[in-house]
């Protein structure tokens, strides 16, 4: 096959700058347009992100794996009947449907007492995030909680759920705090990010200011051990200080060194 004429695709000489940013820089151009290859790579990334939003949560394997580990699991649904209504009606994704409320209430009535923490799993905006990351993450955190004598309530899986649906579950189970594991809105380069939200004393109407979030948990992001460590720290502090949210975050962030941006500017440095 003949090579394309050299001027058809113009490569950008600043490709070495790619090492400094995940941004799609130095893509080159055909005429003034995006060359075929980066154009199709973008389409692929978008397709993966879209699929992540629309793929249904595959519950049976999760159920089997969790039960095999000795956890009790309840399978529930939000009031959003399908993906379309889930996307357009955030209010429906924040509460359980009637059947799920009955299941939850019946189970809660049989529980001997309160629990320290309830884990809630929701597909959110990326079932892939749950499929890929949930079990390795729980394997990093649940055994430790058991060793440290935390009383965990039954695990709830909520299909078509948003973050706030965890409040209803936690409240019904009389949990001191609720941890919801949920698929985050997929970015083009990260369709599989798991988000973790901790809420102390969950109540209907809790706002984001009352929660702590650990974001970007995935193989190529924040790893499971680090995320589990961070969650355990937040849970312990929430229990000790009897709160979660903004007030808790301030201290947690202060204790973990934030990378201060260095003053370097490659645009203005002169000489070699």
């Amino acid at each position, binding site marked *: 096959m003949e090579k394309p004429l050299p001027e058809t695709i113009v490569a950008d000489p600043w490709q070495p*700058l790619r090492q400094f940013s995940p941004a*799609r820089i130095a893509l080159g151009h055909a005429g003034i347009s995006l060359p075929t290859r980066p154009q199709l790579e*973008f389409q692929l990334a978008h397709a993966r992100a879209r699929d992540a939003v629309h793929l249904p949560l595959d519950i049976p394997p999760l159920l089997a794996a969790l039960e095999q580990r000795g956890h009790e699991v309840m399978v529930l649904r939000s009031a959003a009947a399908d993906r379309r209504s889930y996307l357009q009606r955030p*209010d429906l994704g924040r509460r359980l449907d009637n059947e799920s409320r009955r299941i939850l209430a019946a189970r809660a009535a049989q529980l001997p007492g309160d629990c320290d923490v309830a884990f809630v799993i929701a597909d959110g905006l990326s079932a892939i995030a749950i499929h890929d990351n949930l079990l390795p993450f729980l394997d990093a955190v649940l055994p430790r909680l058991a060793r440290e004598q935390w009383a965990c309530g039954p695990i709830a899986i909520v299909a078509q759920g948003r973050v706030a649906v965890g409040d209803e579950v936690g409240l019904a189970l009389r949990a001191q705090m609720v941890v919801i594991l949920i698929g985050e809105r997929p970015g*083009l380069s990260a369709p599989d990010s798991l988000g973790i939200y901790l809420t102390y004393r969950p109540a209907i109407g809790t706002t984001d200011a009352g929660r702590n979030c650990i974001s970007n948990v995935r193989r190529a992001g924040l790893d499971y051990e680090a995320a589990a460590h961070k969650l355990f720290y937040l849970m312990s502090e929430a229990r000790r200080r009897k709160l979660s949210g903004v007030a808790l975050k301030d201290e947690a962030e202060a204790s973990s060194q934030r990378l201060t941006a260095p003053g370097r500017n490659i645009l203005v440095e002169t000489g070699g």
Partner: protein
Amino acid sequence: MTAYAHRVGTHTYRYDSLKELMAKASPARSGDYLAGVAAADDEERAAAQLALADVPLKTFLNEVLVPYEQDEVTRLIIDEHDAAAFAPVGHLTVGDFRNWLLSDAADEQSLAALAPGLTPEMVAAVSKLMRNQDLILVAKKCRVVTRFRNTLGLAGRLATRLQPNHPTDDPTGIAASIVDGLMYGSGDAVIGINPASDSIASVMTLLQMLDASIAQYRIPTQSCVLCHVTTTLEAIKRGAPVDLVFQSIAGTEAANASFGVSLNVLDEAHAAALSLRRGTIGDNVMYFETGQGSALSANAHHGVDQQTCEARAYAVARRYRPLLVNTVVGFIGPEYLYDGKQIIRAGLEDHCCGKLLGLPMGCDVCYTNHAEADQNDMDVLLTLLSVAGVNYIMGVPGADDVMLNYQTTSFHDALYVRKVLGLKPAPEFETWLRSVGIFEPGDALRLATGLPQPFRHVLANLS
């Protein structure tokens, strides 16, 4: 309260208030359904539009949608209304106003003179009676020119904001995207970073970095770090080189409060920015972003439809003679604008309404991955807005913002639309692009090959 009605066959549709009539006359969008204010079906919507067409424009001065006593944005709109400017259209109904806007009587001069006489509710109302082509045609007749270090909004020009965001605000990563953008002719509207962190230290670092870069290459443009206005105020107090003050704003006092701002805070920021006198050819020093759905998402919409709330944000913006205002139309998500069709419509509405109110409107032509939209929808909106004379659009590497996790227009996209429509960058910036060697000499919009000499040291320093 006045009742509004329209009869279709044997059925009479009734609307208890102007607010209800406006909401039901709005072209369908998910946010109005979410708020429970939308028409139940297409017939009720069309009937509402017919009823709205008969409402005199003057009504909007007497029947406010958000109570005057409760809302400083309403007070701003009513108290600063220019009755003399309004007079030429003061006798018209909303429907007649549409006809007037489309007529030859409405031209660049008459529309500029009219702007202070229009309220957001009037332009929102007439936009609800307009098709997309009307929104384009009317917007194209408006011209709003602003200046800081260059001239934005001239006929035949399309500017871009170079948006070099980075997930951790790393200055070297940001510089890499700035080089990429400049080499593709982007950045005349502003080089503007959305910081991942609102911390004052990080913001100061970025402001200094942008200032040094613009000075080093003598780029006729301005910089902005899009942090909260109070952070920028603090940066100014600490002596940071602030060109433009940024803030997200919305159309009600309560929604602005949820953003942590008020007219008082914005007044203070505007005065602080003016005091720096950093603009060389003009003193438009403010940059605002808006977007339909923000008031509802803060539960601060007072039952008003989201497009009207959005237009009210423009009343806030125009108080400050901003250099730049853009709607971030598809960022908010499908619960407010569900798909490409709704995003495209909203982008054209926002642009047209902003221009009618005298604002230098740009648009962040964008979408998230959970919206029913893709690059083809963005191509449509980008092309339509550019035909309509939008002042500027965004530019990010490869259309993928790796910090905000959404897709907006790329550097390549801007070149596409400049090429097909014969649009050029801001004149001072165009001259710079050619003199530095980024564009080839002559009139054609052609990228020069190779890295221009002034930028070669950037790569040399890496080795």
